[in-house]
């Protein structure tokens, strides 16, 4: 394996293979972005154009569509609302799970673990009936609450890990210095949790931003929809204007791409920390 001195041919093959793979994986993203910058007549060609003069007219079309800013507002409201709520509720729960001893603690840990695997996509019918009975169809608050519970279990789970990693001694020291338990938490633990809060909330953001099945089912009125649905209905919104569609996709993907690249090291490390150690 890596200890063998690579033959030149092998080394070339290895690097060439990696390059091909890199191209394959990045291509759809590149194609989305480059198509979004192409003028209409360069999009509608049988043989793709790779060199062109970029234009922003597609972005104009995409953002000029009816209710665009309503979708943006709805998306942001729902996502940020859900994540903020999840953070507050999860912080309390994960503190209890990580720091306090009480009867039923293990049971709660188990519930949180199982809730993480909830098959939300499959429960849309029941959710629809419940929403209808309570006049909560096409409701932004209802959607926010659903997304909140969707991201809650893993928010609790990840925060629990972060809290557990803060040495108890720090808390005790603060208490010896005259802080109450609450103050110790606020002044000592909370600042140390900043990176944890950040990465958990970003993951929550991505989940809620991506959600599709629930909103498709519950929010049929245009005024209550989000960018997710707007994007899937591009066929009707733009006809077969693929340039505008790709501009819309780029706009939709951009926040997530940025957020993700920003936290990628945490992402990879965090997910394997538990799994790989075995």
């Amino acid at each position, binding site marked *: *394996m*890596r*200890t063998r001195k*690579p033959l030149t041919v092998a080394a070339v093959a*290895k*690097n060439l293979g*990696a390059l091909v793979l*890199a191209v394959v994986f990045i291509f759809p993203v590149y*194609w989305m972005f480059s198509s979004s910058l192409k003028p209409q007549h360069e*999009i509608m060609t*049988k*043989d793709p154009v790779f060199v062109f003069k970029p234009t922003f007219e597609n972005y104009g079309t995409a953002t000029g569509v009816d209710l665009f800013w309503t979708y943006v507002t709805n998306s942001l409201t729902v996502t940020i609302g859900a994540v903020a709520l999840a953070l507050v509720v999860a912080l*309390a*729960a994960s503190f*209890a799970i990580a720091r*306090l*001893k009480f009867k039923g603690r*293990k049971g709660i840990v188990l519930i949180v673990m199982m*809730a*993480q695997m*909830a*098959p939300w*996509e499959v*429960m849309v*019918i*029941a959710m629809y009936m*419940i929403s209808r009975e309570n006049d909560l169809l096409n409701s932004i608050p209802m959607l926010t*609450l659903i997304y909140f*519970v969707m991201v809650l*279990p*893993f*928010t609790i789970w*990840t925060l629990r*890990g972060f809290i*557990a*990693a803060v040495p108890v001694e720090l*808390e005790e020291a603060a208490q010896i210095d005259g802080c109450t*338990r609450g103050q110790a938490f606020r002044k000592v633990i909370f600042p140390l949790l900043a990176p944890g809060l950040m990465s958990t909330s970003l993951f929550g953001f*991505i*989940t809620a*931003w*991506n959600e599709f*099945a629930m909103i498709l089912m519950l929010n049929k009125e245009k005024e209550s929809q989000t960018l997710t649905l707007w994007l899937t209905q591009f066929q009707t919104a733009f006809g077969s204007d*693929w340039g505008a*569609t*790709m501009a819309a*996709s780029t706009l*939709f993907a951009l926040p*997530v791409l940025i957020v*993700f*690249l920003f936290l990628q090291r*945490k992402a*990879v490390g965090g*997910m*394997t*920390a*538990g799994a*790989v*150690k*075995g």
Partner: protein
Amino acid sequence: MTVDSQGTATAGPQDAPGRAAGKSQTPPPSSGPKEVLQPPRGRRSLPSGVLPYLLVAPALLSMAVLLLYPLIRNVILSFQQLNRKEFITRETVWTGFDNYTDLLGDGDFWTVAVRSVVFTAVNVALIMAIGTGIGLLLNRLGKKMRLVLSLALMFAWAMPIVASVTVFRWLFDEQFGVANWLMRTLGFSGYDQHNWFETGFSTLVIVLILLVWGSVPFVALNMYAGLTTIGTELYEAAKMDGASGWRTFWAVVFPNLRSFFMITTFLEIIWIFKAFAQVYAMNLGGPDRGSETLPVFAYIEGVGQFHYGVAAAISILTIVMLIAVMSFYFRLILKEEEEL
């Protein structure tokens, strides 16, 4: 992740199953595999009373109302006849197990169920094989090339599901899609106006490519992260014993990363099996309902055909299948725990 969904960037939750319940002190998600933190320290500070219950109450309450209750309602709905008429008049008609017996005696259901299982199996096998391969490759690359490939993988991983479905529809567009151009350039004939969404099968193949493309990065990058935790002396020992690359993989890499493989395979099964947006948004389950998987089948039966009761029964059957997979997984985890 998520994301979730898929596949997608829904990344947070995945670390969870790895740390089984009861293990209290685990390193925080931020710590890379390299910096394994302090050894478990006894849990201290225990002023109990009602405080812990007050702290967990909001979380438990919201999960009960918005997760458990819909789940129970789902079960109840599945025992009702709830078609267009009952739906409008809001009357409740109990039919016992009729929805289930109808479904289980219906060829369409079995077609979709078998399709879902096969689709998931092929998908997960491909994802694991390709992901592992790329993970191993990453481990053997030089620094620069590794960065290039990781970045490319990262972009694919981070693409929001709905955006990637849209892009794939564009790549495989009948008239101006780059896929048809590529096929022509490679010398295949008949790809002038080839419609990739002509049959349910070909639609599912496109969905499969999309899912593999979107899921492989998760496996590959985590696989690589896992590989970096294996000490080089093991490879050296293997090499001294004259082991081939293949042999080294099975003798050194696989046993060391066994739980990684287990957990990742399991997560992929769940994600792919319940993937909804990718399948539905690609071609609305069509043509002729030919690309429906179980979650899409439930949605279309319910919303499209006004068979809400039947749809609820389908979703319950889907959940039962998921639970079967999960219980298998939980057993594995528990066994691992005992061995430790």
